């Protein structure tokens, strides 16, 4: 039964999206244009996030390590 209420919830979310962005009032070809534009933008944003976000996170991680300790090289040397 959860699937049914889940599906209804998703349908309700879709209705809200339609009402808020006025796509409820558009003719079918306008809706096609609008949705394809939106989906294209969304796919592009997700793709760029997939490619660049891990690189940025590792760079930021290294920057903060450099700021708080400077232990890039293993400076632990055994004096003996």
């Amino acid at each position: 039964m959860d699937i049914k209420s889940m599906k209804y919830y998703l349908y309700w979310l879709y209705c809200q999206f339609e009402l808020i962005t006025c796509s409820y009032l558009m003719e079918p070809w306008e809706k096609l244009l609008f949705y394809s534009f939106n989906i294209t933008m969304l796919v592009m944003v997700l793709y760029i996030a997939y490619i660049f976000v891990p690189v940025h996170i590792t760079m930021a991680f290294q920057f903060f390590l450099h700021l708080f300790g400077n232990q890039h090289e293993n400076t632990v040397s055994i004096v003996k």
Partner: protein
Amino acid sequence: LYKKTFIEHFEQAPMYVAVLTFLGFGVGTIFGYLRDFMRAWGLEKRNVATEREQQKDFVPLYQDFENFYTRNLYMRIRDNWNRPICSVPGPQFDLMERVTDDYNWTFRFTGRTIKNVINMGSYNYLGFAETDVNALKTVTIELQKYGTGICSTRQEMGTLDKHVELEKLVAKFLGVEDAMVFGMGFATNSMNIPALVGKGCLILSDELNHTSLVLGARLSGATIRIFKHNNMQSLEKLLRDAIIYGQPRSHRAWRKIIILVEGIYSMEGSIVRLPEIVSLKKKYKAYLYLDEAHSIGAVGATGRGVVEYFGMSPDDVDVLMGTFTKSFGAAGGYIAGKKDLVDFLRTHSHSAVYATSMCPPVAEQIIRAMKCLMGQDGTTQGLQRVRQLGKNTRYFRRRLHEMGFIIYGNDDSPVVPLLLYMPGKIGAFARRMLEKNIGVVVVGFPATPITESRARFCVSAAHTREMLDTVLNALDELGDFLHLKYSRYSKSSHPELYEETRLELED
């Protein structure tokens, strides 16, 4: 100053609602530009009014925002307005069904009628729009005696004994010396204000006054200054500035200062702050013109309007104006006040000289409605109607507040605006309510500010408790589906109805 508590609500919606409304309008505008581009370059058939080829080099006619809005946004939801009805606009009515094949540019009637649609849009406050044969007996007698046309103006041959009887009755109903009736309510305002004020006078009018008052003020040629809606500090500041500085360039004193207000504002549902205005008027020696179009018959303990609602005497207001269209189920307007004022208007009003007077069956309908309200026909039906309207109003507003909608206006006004905000929801709300057999009036941009579109309900004394419950349940469902319950102050989602029934048993 106020004998009972004066509670008005103008709640602001949360910020995200305003942001999303602008987003919706933004998308609509972009698509509007796209469609205009396609129409201009011939990619789409033109159904709008455009200039002819020869006129293209002149000043453009249809490029302003209002025409853009009409072409691109209003046309998409146009099927919710101008719906033809085919029965009396009582608590329920019949609609003619119409469909559109080309997205609201043209309509065609299928021939069927939708029966018994609950009417939440007509200004039928006391329920006098009825076809009951017993109720309309005197009206049919007068119709057979006088016919329907007058074919003359008041000053020529259009004053009948019916008009004299009606004017005396109106004066007695309101508790003033004399009254004059006109054939059309809008024309009462726009034709009589120019007769009362002229050049060299000052008009202080409320921000949200009706078009008839604005038109009358502009036609008169007086200077117009606007004060914020129902805001007494703003009005007092304007009065003080007017008296201190006088007329603009010569600094002479103003010949007359007149304040134009309405009893109930039909788009907000708010009631005028009459005691404060009367005290201001007495202090600064100005005149007061009160337009009781929506409040006569609808507020007050015996239906005598806003003056009785606040417990004041009608001598405090200089010009009492009202219409018979709303609570009396007829057409026309009146102006009442001191005998000198009304005698002046009989000779100097444009309406008296040029406009046709009220037709006799309509005058008889008003006479019978007024006699019913005053109790002169031997029953207490009039008082019962006023009480029923008050009960219905309070019940409706209380339930809507509890459900969590944002409602504007005073707790005692029968006009209930429910805020919708987003342009997409205007069309969806009206269409879905019609599918559930309830007819509502939704209002959008030119009549309201662009971000505050609303659905306006007019509660009537003829609505039974079952009808109101049907409407409220439909609103509950629709409010959940369209996500309209923005209020932050709602008490509970399901009110306890048993409390209400206990009050009923005590009666």
